């Protein structure tokens, strides 16, 4: 059976050139980079080459790169480490409502420890509300963290503009650190830390054709951060623990390849994305694009398909060899509609039918044609058994949900897992 992988926002296939670069570092050059015998120096050289490759992708200095094990770890280090280092200046932190859980749960912990957190809302397309950001800035604000692009709905923020709003605000008195989680952007679209004037940035290998287990935090020279792990000298004491050399070498190679091929790849992927976004609504009625129309990640397609549920959609797609994702409540382990769709104020009932396709450089036009052929059949099949759809076809009306509607009286079971 055909296998079409379209969940590249969660993980990408490794580029074989990356694998080739990694291979010697498992059984041949396995020395600890902190040791000064020859095997150790080879690892140390490889580590520093990778640091240079990663820095070069985002136009940073190699000294500004700290290697970690995942995007989650980088975000934890950034949020908690910067907050801890700057807490004597103030205890106010600003994040957006659509951040990754590693940011949201980090600030949740800080809140329990006495920090105050403001959440900036987004509009219906997932763009940060600039007015709310301006309003949220205070004398005791020390840190702002707003993601570069959203992996679920693809919206790319105007980070440069947001940084300048924060840096130029009259309401503030501290030096405010601006961190951006750029995991879904780096390697896909060009990111330049100097041009953005950003203080800290998270990027990860696993979504840019690199291996799992390697990520980085860029911290601008002079920005204070406290380590979150106590140990040895590694990463200049900012992140102790023996370096995962094979993965870091792979990360470096992934960055080098990305830098060379980013424009070509994003053009190819964007063309495929545009075709799917243009053609699906011609084949399926009552479907709505989630996220930005223009400033959108090249490989991101997120539609809400009315009258059907997202998990059922992706299970039937999986049976056809198409691997996708969904933001529906039933597809989430916590049985809640994705926090991103919720923040965008997407109608809850419609959001249940969200389906997410994220393309990579390995996808082809043939893949897109196969989806265009199979996906409408899957939707039809589920609509044919949907009571919401038969009600709509018979009456021309939608069953609405929420207080004071058709479903006001029996919403009991949905909160069962709270």
């Amino acid at each position, binding site marked *: 059976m055909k296998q079409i992988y379209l969940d590249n926002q969660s993980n990408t296939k490794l580029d074989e050139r990356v694998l080739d670069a990694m291979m010697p570092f498992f059984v041949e050059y396995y020395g600890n980079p902190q040791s000064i015998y020859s095997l150790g120096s080879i690892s140390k050289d490889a580590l520093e080459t990778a640091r240079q490759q990663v820095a070069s992708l985002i136009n940073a200095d190699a000294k500004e790169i700290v290697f970690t094990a995942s995007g989650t770890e980088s975000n934890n280090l950034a949020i908690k480490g910067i907050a801890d280092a700057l807490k004597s200046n103030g205890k106010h932190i600003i994040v957006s409502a659509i951040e990754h859980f590693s940011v949201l749960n980090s600030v949740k912990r800080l809140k329990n420890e006495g920090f105050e957190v403001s959440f900036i809302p987004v509009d219906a397309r997932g763009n940060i509300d600039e007015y709310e950001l301006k309003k949220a800035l205070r004398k005791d604000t020390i840190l702002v963290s707003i993601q570069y692009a959203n992996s679920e709905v693809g919206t790319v923020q105007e980070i440069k503009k947001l940084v300048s709003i924060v840096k130029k605000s009259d309401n503030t008195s501290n030096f405010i650190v601006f961190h951006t989680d750029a995991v879904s952007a780096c390697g896909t679209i060009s990111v330049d830390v100097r041009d953005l004037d950003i203080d800290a940035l998270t990027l990860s290998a696993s979504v840019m054709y690199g291996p799992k287990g390697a990520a980085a935090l860029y911290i601008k020279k002079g920005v204070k951060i406290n380590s979150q792990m106590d140990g040895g000298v590694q990463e200049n004491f900012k992140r102790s623990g023996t370096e995962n050399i094979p993965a870091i070498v792979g990360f470096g190679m992934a960055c080098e390849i990305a830098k060379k091929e980013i424009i070509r790849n994003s053009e190819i992927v964007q063309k495929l994305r545009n075709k799917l976004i243009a053609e699906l609504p011609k084949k399926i009625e009552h479907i709505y694009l989630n996220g930005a129309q223009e400033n959108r990640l090249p490989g991101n397609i997120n539609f809400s398909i009315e*009258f*059907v*549920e*997202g*998990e*059922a959609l992706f*299970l*039937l797609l999986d*049976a056809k060899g198409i691997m996708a994702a969904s933001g*529906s*409540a*039933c*597809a989430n*382990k*916590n*049985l809640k*509609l994705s926090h991103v769709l919720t923040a965008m104020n997407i109608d*809850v*009932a419609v959001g*249940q039918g969200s389906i997410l396709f994220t393309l990579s450089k390995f996808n082809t036009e043939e893949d897109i044609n196969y989806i265009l052929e199979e996906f409408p059949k899957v939707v039809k099949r589920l609509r*044919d*058994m*949907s*009571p*919401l*759809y*038969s009600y709509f076809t018979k009456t021309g009306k939608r*069953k609405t*949900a*929420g207080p004071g509607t058709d*479903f006001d009286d*029996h*919403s009991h*079971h*949905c909160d*069962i*897992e709270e």
Partner: protein
Amino acid sequence: MPFYSEKVMEHFANPRNVGEIKDADGIGEVGNPVCGDMMTFYIKVKDNKIEDVKFKTFGCGAAIAVSSMVSEMVLGKTIEEVMSLTNADVAKSLGGLPPNKMHCSNLGADALHKAIENYKSKRGK
């Protein structure tokens, strides 16, 4: 291990008794699109037994599999037997459900019980 049991996937992929009954003796609707699942069950009753059953379901894989399984379990059963059907019975017949999907099995039995109440109230008039 796959997320769903083979039995769940089989019922989800080939659901039994999908549809509506125009002159149904009882209709039961439960669920809520906000939670992501909603079921409507239609029954025909003859000699105190379920002569025919059809359903339409909006929901995840588990919700659809539960609907299909419940419809199979109650066909030909007496009203009393159907009323004593529990959510645990349905989940068990499906070879178990993931813990966060157990509420779907509640919906299946609830929808049928509601259809029977609807049948009884119509007959009472």
